[in-house]
């Protein structure tokens, strides 16, 4: 998730810009486009890591930024949480979700000790479950919400879909920078 930053449109940190969250309900066709972005992400990340190659994945995508390897493990960590937020919102009324220390998590020892192929496989299976869940949601369920205590925002599942489809493409953009380097 992007944190508010003073250097708002730093094109290296934000290679695809910031997400624009919908303020009115999406059409089924619009939703299908974002769901497809989530469905396509694991294969795109895998392809981007192949293009960048093993050595470049050990390098930061920007000075002081995460390495390609940390980016992949971060996407796996985060998308587990984002999928859970959908499940919480579908089974509780406007649940308060649990923020986490994404910078601290990226320094935990399994990130250095586990090959990225493990997180890429994890994402492939996780996104299969996530996409099937999204494809089965009723019109009314898309307007269910959760509350994020760090940002003090209530998001509908539609807004979360747009935000999280952006999140995957945002980090894919970072790997694209490494592949071009």
């Amino acid at each position, binding site marked *: 998730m992007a944190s508010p930053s003073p250097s708002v449109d730093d094109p290296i940190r934000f290679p695809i810009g910031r997400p624009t969250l919908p303020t009115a309900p999406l059409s089924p066709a619009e939703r299908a486009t974002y769901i497809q972005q989530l469905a396509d992400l694991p294969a795109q990340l895998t392809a981007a890591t192949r293009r960048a190659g093993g050595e470049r994945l050990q390098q930061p995508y920007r000075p002081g930024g995460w390495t390609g390897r940390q980016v992949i493990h971060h996407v796996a960590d985060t998308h587990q*949480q984002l999928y859970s937020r959908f*499940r919480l919102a579908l089974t509780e009324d406007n649940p308060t*979700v649990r923020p986490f220390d994404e910078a601290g998590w990226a320094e*935990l*020892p399994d990130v250095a000790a586990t090959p990225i192929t493990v997180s890429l*496989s*994890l994402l492939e*299976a996780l996104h*299969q*479950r996530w996409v099937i869940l999204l494809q089965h949601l009723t019109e009314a369920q898309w307007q269910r919400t959760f509350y994020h205590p760090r940002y003090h925002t209530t998001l509908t599942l539609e807004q979360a879909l747009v935000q999280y489809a952006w999140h995957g493409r945002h980090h894919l953009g970072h790997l694209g920078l490494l592949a071009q380097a």
Partner: protein
Amino acid sequence: MDALRYPIGPPQLPMNPLTATERAALIQQLAELPAQLAAAAERLGAVRLQQPYRPGGWTGHQVIHHVADSHLNSYVRFKLALTEDNPTIKPYDEATWATLPDVAAEPASVSLSLLASLHQRWVALLQHLPEAQWQRTFFHPESRKTTTLDQALALYAWHGRHHLAHLALLEA
């Protein structure tokens, strides 16, 4: 205790820090679980996986998806406890989660694959924890219990074997 519902009995949580050998044995149980679940699912086949392991209980299919849901959450609890001081974790409604539409629509193989990857990361994390980290804790707001990572390790190693035993009941 209901022998069908609790085929290996309830979990036994350690009251004192575990030894390195005890921890290694429990970590090994987590490492082996995904392949054991996959082998049990393979022996059962798709049709028997749709049957409940006891009257009114989850189907084998639901059991496998539940283990994936649960272990995603438990891996997160370890990471929260390692990056925050005695964090309050977010409980979830496991009975309702088992009825969400992806559980019915998705083959068990997807959750088995998810578990294989997840447990690789989880086991790598556990194998690299320094001694002092095992006494870090998290707080469960519904049970009002504070759990050390040693106790959580014992609990989730039990949890995997507990559900593996449900699949064995279906095979019997």
